[in-house]
């Protein structure tokens, strides 16, 4: 069974550009989460989808970040326009419910 996959694994962009990160959850998992780890700090929650609905987006830092999960399958996280402080590793996780989250390998974003 395929795990959570994320694309791209690494993206390098200039300040002001746009980047879109993609996450494919484990098939059948209704819960999908985005997290990020910035500059070696803690892993911070961004948002939580249940199917296609945003259950909790309290961690989204500002309106430059837009997450979608059309059809309740894969999800995208767009950063537009990117700023230097957005650099970090963005993790996606999915869960069937019951607590345990299954994580992807992360997308490293570098904003120059």
């Amino acid at each position, binding site marked *: 069974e395929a795990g959570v996959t994320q694309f791209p694994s690494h993206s390098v962009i200039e300040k002001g550009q746009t980047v879109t990160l993609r996450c494919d959850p484990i098939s059948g998992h209704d819960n999908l989460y985005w997290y990020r780890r910035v500059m070696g700090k803690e892993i911070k929650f961004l948002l939580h989808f249940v199917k296609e609905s945003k259950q909790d987006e309290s961690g989204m830092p500002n309106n430059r970040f837009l997450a979608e999960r059309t059809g309740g399958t894969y999800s995208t996280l767009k950063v537009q326009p990117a700023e230097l402080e957005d650099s970090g590793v963005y993790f996606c996780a999915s869960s069937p*419910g019951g*607590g345990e989250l299954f994580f992807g390998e992360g997308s490293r974003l570098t904003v120059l």
Partner: protein
Amino acid sequence: AQSVAQPEDQVNVAEGNPLTVKCTYSVSGNPYLFWYVQYPNRGLQFLLKYITGDNLVKGSYGFEAEFNKSQTSFHLKKPSALVSDSALYFCAVILGMGSSYKLIFGSGTRLLVRP
């Protein structure tokens, strides 16, 4: 605020020696606690969890963790460390319930096992 704390940025241990990675929590109600590990250039991998029951929880790769309610701790332990255990370890707690829950992570502890 509900949170988890990992007081050590790094833990150094010699191969074959026991290891402990510390975690304390501050949550209301009964905590659901987790440990995850991140190996270099890999994603987060689940190690073990405490939901209810025995305070000593056994997980993957020979790791175990002890839930201590009076000390609000959930320290990760292994009797004999391996060089391959060198990685980044994260303690986490579930917040919320029902369909609205999320993991809140500690800041992580880097474990370095020297040969």
